[in-house]
């Protein structure tokens, strides 16, 4: 894989940040998943101010999620079960579609290039990163927003608790946004993603849910919830620790019963 510049990498949850007021009207019907992702993407773009000067058709969006707007889907189902056929909410249905959040992001941040939502039970954020890097390498786009996000779900949380007492559920929407760019000359230190490898192994669903046996190296600074977001959070923390340290490299790795992954990082 060709290296790409990591211009920004931020992570947080819905309790830490709300979307800027300027997007209030656009987000008036949005669910918490979308609002949180918009808030953190806005934050990431503060670290990549040049993005707004680029041709919008050369901007791409890659969103990785295991469960997407699962709870929004249940809210739609609530209207169907409670109100009956013919009274189900069209607004909730349109927001229950997996790529609804990507649609909001493309509208709010004027992304006219590709907008992909990809789903895996393992490490969806890594899959989104790989697709973004491939699109830059293929000269389809110049800059990519890469997002990982999951929303808390009582249905999943309770099932996880049934399987494992050690399960740490999501309490609010978790989001990670990176900005990747095509490599270019600069006198300032730049952080590169040199390579990404993902090798997935089919696994039993209880492991996907509880994430038992999933480990990261370097270890995460803060313990992340036992969800697919833990990987995205761990990798983002590694990237942020490396930023500004010229000449430093890191090999970030994930291992789990459902596979292994590695991301090579280099600051130069």
């Amino acid at each position, binding site marked *: 894989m060709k290296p790409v510049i990591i211009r920004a990498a931020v992570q947080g949850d819905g309790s830490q940040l709300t979307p800027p007021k300027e997007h209030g009207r656009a987000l008036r019907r949005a669910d918490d998943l979308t609002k949180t992702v918009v808030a953190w993407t806005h934050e990431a773009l503060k670290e990549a101010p040049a993005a707004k000067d680029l041709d919008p058709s050369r901007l791409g969006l890659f969103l990785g999620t295991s469960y997407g707007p*699962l709870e929004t889907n249940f809210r739609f*189902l609530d209207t169907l079960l409670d109100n009956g*056929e013919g009274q189900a909410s*069209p607004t909730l249905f349109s927001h229950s579609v997996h790529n609804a959040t990507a649609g909001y992001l493309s*509208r709010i941040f004027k992304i006219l*290039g*590709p907008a992909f939502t990809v789903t895996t039970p393992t490490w969806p954020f890594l899959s989104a990163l790989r697709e973004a890097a491939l699109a830059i*390498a293929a000269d389809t786009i110049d800059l990519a927003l890469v997002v990982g996000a999951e929303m808390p779900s009582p249905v999943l949380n309770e099932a996880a608790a049934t399987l494992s007492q050690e399960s740490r559920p999501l309490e609010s929407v978790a989001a990670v946004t990176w900005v990747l760019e095509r490599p270019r000359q600069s006198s300032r230190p730049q952080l590169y993603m040199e390579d990404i490898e993902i090798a997935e192994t089919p696994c039993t669903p209880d492991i996907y849910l509880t994430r038992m046996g999933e480990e990261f190296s370097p270890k995460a600074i803060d313990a992340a919830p036992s969800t697919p977001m833990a990987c995205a959070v761990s990798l983002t923390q590694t990237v942020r620790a490396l930023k500004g340290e010229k000449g430093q490299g890191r090999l970030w790795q994930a291992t789990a019963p459902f596979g292994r992954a590695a991301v090579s990082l280099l600051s130069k």
Partner: protein
Amino acid sequence: MGCISGVGDNLAAHIQGLKGSERNCRLVPPWLFATKHPYPVFVGPENPLTTAGATLLSQLDPPSALPRTSCLLLSALAEALEMAELSLDDIRRLRVGIAIGTTVGCTFNDEDYYQSFRQGERRPIDPVLNYLNGNLAAQLQAILGCKGPSLVVTNACASGTDAIGIAGGWLRAGLCDLAIAGGADELSRIAYNGFSSLQLCASEACRPFAAERTGLNLGEGAGVLILEPQGRDHIQGWLRGYGANSDAWHATAPHPEGQGLVRAAAQALSGLPPEGRLALINAHGTGTQANDLAENKALQHIIPSAGDTAVVSTKGWTGHTLGAAGALEAIFTLLALQDGQVPGTLGCKEQDPAFKVDISPQGENRALRSRFGLSQSLAFGGCNSALLMEARP
């Protein structure tokens, strides 16, 4: 290639079915789900697992029953592997990429479990585990026992097209030796009521691009293509280009001028060789007012010299199969290009007079002037994508 839909459960049935005007469009059968809505659908076989698909499923260890979407996918995959003369031993020896598009296939659809949950009842969590086990790409990896990049594309109605485009990118980047790409979706009560709530469903068989069109019919099915970087003897055609662009316009409606589609098509058409001519566009053509109007406006820019290129929609035969649509329609595009002719749009007897680009109407059988065709998709979220296909001589 392999496919299954309301038309039939294999390629031969589709080749035959797409030449006729018979439509398997009916009210939702009770064995699928109960509804009082009057909106007809295109239903696949009651048993969506063909014999060959069941043989593939028998590889799953431990054995497990799979959702309808997965069964549709396995049936299409089994046919595609057979046509490509690929054994499981071959698959297990190679690096195999798996990219599958879906919409219903990635959602939690067990209404009974959810109903119990929200009423405070606590039942065994098997439906949750089935949902977690339902990722189509991971399922195929488990069944086939192969290794390589895998993901499910959830770009709404463009998912199947994007899955094929992504898999093509993997092959070009050297991430895999061959790729299994396509899409699958079953009819579900939830999605059916969702589209009904948006008032997009017709209460009659759909009439894509027709003046009197009244909406879409949902359908179900699966389409799978086996992509390889180097052709072997049994090659069916080539993926020559792919484009994907966003409208950045509206959650469910396309840009009124089809701007994103114009850019996606231009990207895909950059793969057309200098001497190449575009013979066919297999349009998204759902039969809704907004889609067909926007798509026709986009067509003015995609094919400036109108008349040289046949434009059709095949949803009159299959309905809108959501995540499967892009894959099925890519296959139909290749089949028509191989045949050198394409049937007109079933359900479109007189096209909307507002259209500037002519649509091949029902009953017309149009000769194709080259082996190049474009298959295009539009989707919720403002996604647009297009595949440029070339048929084997």
